[in-house]
């Protein structure tokens, strides 16, 4: 691949980290390409300065709203809220094109001051209106009502955030996709093009199969083959689980034909952290649970739809 990729963007980042509140307005340009067989990346003068970044006022208001919504024994350990826009230009085939994108990210960690349990949440969309804060309130309420012990159950409900994490973890082990487990690349209306300017087209993954699109998390990184907006399909009759895994705590990992992840779980209005192990056979037979499909900014994007699994093992965290 020769030619170059150019990106120019503005973003406003409101953050709270280690007790320091900050508002950063960043204007940035950069280009990358392959010359003489080696990848290169260089920064550029952006056409617009920091004054062109989104107004930080609404972001600061949202940060304060989140802070005020927390119960007394739950604290905001850290939070980053970012809104921005970027223009992309590819001058090589097959994707030679220009396009614009808008993006918004919310990354925060809630902490129980009683149990010291920390739960990170990652949400995203094209605009701040896309951010779903209802689940944040639910997670905070579960942290405020800790439950002792882990119940023995036959069915486990997996919330959209957990399903998206599981889908993203499958995209990493695509070469060894477990038999019977389905994963598909889908599209997102806000971000139709990949890191080479090619259209992102839906397809069903197969073990060792080709990844036709490339991901470029930053102009500073070479584009690498990846699956975009991944999703584990679920269908059939709606069902409910005895316990719900509400929010992942860390990454899911596949090993020996099963997937393991830690998650904040809920039962009878109380919250507890658990280690969850789901065999591939369980992941191959999921029932749909009520609720809407949601997108999450995990790797090159992941969708999650609530599901119920029957063969999960849950242990104390």
């Amino acid at each position, binding site marked *: 691949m020769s030619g170059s990729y150019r990106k120019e963007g503005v973003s406003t980042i409101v953050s709270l980290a280690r007790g*320091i509140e900050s508002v950063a*307005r*960043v*204007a*940035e340009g950069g280009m990358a390409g392959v010359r003489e067989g080696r*990848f290169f*990346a260089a*920064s*550029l003068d952006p056409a617009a*300065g920091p004054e062109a970044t989104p107004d930080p006022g609404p972001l600061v208001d949202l940060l304060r709203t989140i802070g005020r919504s927390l119960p007394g024994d739950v604290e905001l350990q850290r939070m980053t809220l970012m809104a921005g826009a970027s223009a992309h230009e590819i001058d090589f085939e097959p994707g030679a094109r220009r396009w614009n994108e808008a993006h918004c990210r919310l990354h925060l960690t809630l902490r129980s001051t009683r149990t010291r349990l920390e739960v990170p949440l990652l949400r995203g969309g094209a605009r701040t209106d896309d951010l779903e804060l209802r689940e944040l309130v639910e997670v905070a309420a579960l942290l405020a009502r800790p439950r002792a012990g882990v119940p023995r159950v036959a069915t486990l409900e997996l919330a959209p955030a957990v399903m998206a994490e599981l889908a993203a973890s499958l995209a990493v082990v695509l070469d060894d996709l477990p038999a019977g487990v389905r994963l598909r690349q889908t599209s997102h209306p806000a971000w139709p093009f990949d890191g080479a300017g090619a259209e992102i087209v839906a397809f069903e993954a197969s073990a060792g199969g080709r990844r036709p699109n490339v991901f470029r998390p930053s102009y500073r990184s070479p584009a690498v083959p990846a699956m975009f907006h991944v999703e584990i399909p679920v269908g059939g009759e709606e069902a409910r689980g005895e316990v719900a895994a509400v929010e992942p705590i860390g990454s899911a990992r596949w090993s020996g034909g099963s997937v393991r992840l830690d998650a904040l779980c809920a039962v009878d209005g109380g919250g507890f952290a658990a280690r969850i192990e789901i065999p591939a056979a369980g992941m191959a037979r999921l029932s749909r649970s009520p609720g809407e499909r949601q997108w999450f900014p995990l790797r090159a994007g992941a969708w999650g739809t609530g599901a119920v699994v029957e063969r999960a093992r849950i242990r104390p965290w």
Partner: protein
Amino acid sequence: MSQYRRPDHRFVMSRTEERWIVTAGRPRLLELRAEKGEAALAGGPATRIEARSVAFFPQPAGFGGEAERIFATLLDALPKSGSFHLRRVREERTIFPHEGEPVLRSARLVSLRASAGGSLIFPLDLSVPERLLEALDLLEMGPPERLDVRGIPIAWTGGTAAVLLHEALGHPAEADADPIRWPDWLEVLDEPEHDGLGTMPVDDHGVVPTRARLTGGERPDAFRCASFRDVPLRRMTNLVVRTDQAPAELPDPRLEVLLLAGGRWDAAADVVELRVARARLVRGGSARTLAPFTWRAPRTAVAASLRGAIGPVVAYPGVICAVEGQRVAVGSFSPTLVMEAPGW
């Protein structure tokens, strides 16, 4: 210790990074990156940052005469078998404090990852080829075995004790965690003026940072940021372990920790975790190399099980430390520390 300060100031930074692969003695430049940016910071209820990038194009072999000669010597010195990934970084920051003259801070680093495992990072100076080859000898020990070494005393050698205390004392001090009691003979300092990976005549707030005695409950004084886009956070610079009147003898048997692949402090559980890349079990006159493993202990158990020190203070070959997504280099210096096994 000085108070928390956020004076208005600005800085300009540039960074050039090369990634090389050396296979069978043949080096090849794979990636070349350059970026430059400027930021203005203002205090108040919230730190306000206005930042923008500046055009900056990378030039191969753009590190300057002596740095190029040292790097060429290093490439020549690498073993002709196996493959090695090298990263060479040059970073320069000019900080314009609220008052006073601009200050230039520059760093040149080289890091290496061997196909056999393990990673190393050094300031790019005349000592690099020799120090790197010494460290590579550790990577070539073998063959590794999986042995049960629970309950065996540990000797943290080659500066690895500084990394242990980076996690067990440095990060908790950065985060203002509850202090715990450390042995009276142990002094752990954050020394911005120390010659090392984190040497800091002026920090990213435009302030001259002072030495902090972490074992005395002080917090690192320097505020550092990884790039012009980031908020400066309270971070370690050079972690230096000193001991007073605590001579120890190497126990037999013992687990000698030689090289680490990473570590973390789990604030929620108050547990320290280190990924050990190279260690050996020494019993009598013989030594057996261990396969890489993860070592964990509660922070209070680390403090309670330290027994004493042996030998001079030595530099550990590098720590790249990530907090809130910002990666900065931290210098690490310690003598060998001996501890009872506090558990796994």
